[in-house]
């Protein structure tokens, strides 16, 4: 497949160029034909009855014809651009399917292995306990993966339909951020000595707690995955005037300048031989960005270099200071959704 990809792109570009050349040569021919005819007409104009010729209408036809052709060619370029973008997504999607298959099969085969082992052999009881907890861990992994694929579809419905759950509330920023980070760290059994959480953000914000947790889960998961040793994480909260900032820094393998642009893309995975981990779906950071943007915020990444770690900078709007209308809309939708689900509950 890797061999095929550049050639298909090459053929697309070639086809596009040929099509454009045909357009423009047709246009040229047409203009040539028109002008020669026109000149001929001009020459014989005197001899013909003047009422037979009306030059103004012909010029209008010429101009509108050219405009139409240019529009056609422009729309063709647009179609070409979208087609290419779509092809790229399809390629990444194939990649995604391969990754998800791998991610599904690994825990599955491990569970199968333990079950068959226990069927085949007499396993000492403490070993059995170990196997059971490993199996539960694998089931947790499967559950996590399935959930994340489900999140994807709910995130895709960006047009705020009533069907998508909304759970936005006004929080004290400092408290909620610290709470959620602590929860995430606990989920990963992240030792406290490896984390430093500094700064403060004394302001209010509008946040969906469970989605914010997905953001930190993914950032922590990535920090662990992309570090050769167990990482040190530094999280710094900074209040700004209209936005507050969360700087999330790890001391992992870092992200090259070229890859920094790509990592938030859907299904994108960076395959580098330096990477200590090869697992993943290419969705984590895509969600992180989508969620942050859905909160009205922005996310960016920087890395001082190879093996020097990376910093994710998240900016979220302060309630009543910026994006007022958007925040109120989120809150309104939450109320609406709650009313809706309460009604469903009553029925």
């Amino acid at each position, binding site marked *: 497949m890797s061999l095929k990809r550049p050639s298909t792109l090459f053929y697309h570009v070639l086809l596009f160029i040929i099509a454009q050349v045909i357009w423009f040569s047709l246009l040229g021919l047409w203009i040539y034909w028109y002008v020669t005819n026109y000149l001929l007409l001009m020459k014989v104009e005197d001899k013909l009855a003047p009422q037979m010729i009306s030059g103004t209408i012909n010029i209008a036809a010429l101009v509108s014809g050219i405009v139409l052709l240019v529009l056609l060619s422009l729309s063709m370029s647009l179609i070409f651009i979208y087609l290419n973008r779509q092809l790229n997504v399809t390629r990444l999607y194939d990649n995604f399917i391969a990754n998800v298959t791998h991610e599904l099969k*690994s825990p599955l085969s*491990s569970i199968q*292995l333990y079950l068959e082992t226990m069927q085949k052999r007499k396993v000492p009881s403490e070993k059995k306990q170990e196997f059971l907890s490993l199996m539960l861990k694998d089931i947790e992994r499967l559950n996590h993966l399935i959930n994340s694929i489900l999140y994807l579809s709910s995130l895709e419905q960006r047009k705020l339909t009533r069907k998508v759950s909304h759970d936005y509330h006004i929080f004290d920023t400092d408290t909620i951020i610290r709470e959620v980070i602590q929860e995430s760290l606990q989920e990963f059994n992240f030792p406290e000595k490896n984390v430093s959480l500094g700064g403060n953000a004394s302001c209010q914000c509008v946040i969906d707690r469970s989605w914010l947790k997905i953001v930190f889960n993914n950032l922590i998961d990535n920090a662990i995955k992309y570090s050769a040793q167990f990482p040190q994480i530094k999280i710094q909260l900074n209040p700004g005037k209209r936005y507050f900032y969360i700087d999330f820094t790890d001391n992992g393998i870092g992200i090259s300048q070229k890859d920094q642009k790509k990592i938030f893309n859907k299904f994108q995975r960076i395959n580098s031989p330096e990477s200590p981990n090869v697992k993943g779906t290419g969705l984590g950071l895509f969600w992180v960005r989508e969620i942050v943007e859905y909160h009205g915020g922005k996310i960016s990444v920087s890395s001082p270099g190879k093996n020097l770690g990376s910093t994710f900078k998240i900016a979220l709007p302060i309630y009543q200071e910026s994006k007022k209308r958007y925040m109120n809309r989120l809150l309104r939708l939450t109320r609406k959704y709650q009313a809706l689900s309460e009604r469903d509950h009553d029925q």
Partner: protein
Amino acid sequence: MTNKERILLVEDEDSLAIGLEFNLSAEGYSVTWVNDGKKALQQIHSAHFDLVILDLMLPYVSGFEVAGQIRTKDLQLPILILTARTTLKDRLKGFEVGADDYLTKPFHLEELLLRVKGMLKRKKWYRQSVQNMPSFQLGDKKINFEALTIQSMNQKLQLTAFEAILLKYLIDNRGKVVSRKELLEKVWNISSEIETRTVDNFIVRLRKYLEPDPDNPVYIKSVRGIGYLLNEK
């Protein structure tokens, strides 16, 4: 030094590796487990193993590369690829870089153990068989079963471990008709009736190496409907 057979397990999924280690040890093998390609190569260079169980998607150095590196150092070390990648392309690539067997996840424990056993048995048989007959002269070509080479007047060909085992088996049974099924069972350790094309493909390769005219073979002859017959003449 015990006489336990040593297996190098290269697997980056912790939970799978722990289970495999438990089972292989229970079967009486001595297991060394590493979780990335770099460590696998270090082990290969520093210690002796009888068999390698290799995952493909590995950190730092991919399984394909590990297999390739093993082959540059040791032509006969059996490699079993154990992976979630099921496409034909991956399979073919696996065999191309020198794997002896390919098993996809999820797998049955019993099947894995059987294959490991079969591979080790085959290797042992080959080694003993080579001790009795380290080389063989077929026409003007000399086959060296230790270096896995075919030496003729003006050139030297390198055999893969599989080709060598197949050839050895045919030579050991020279003058007798060997059925495809028997070859599959004894050489490939597969008891299936469907993959007979595999045997034919390998025979075609051996003929290319050995026959003066591969289209009209004189040494390795087909016996219609049954199998193959190797004659020294």
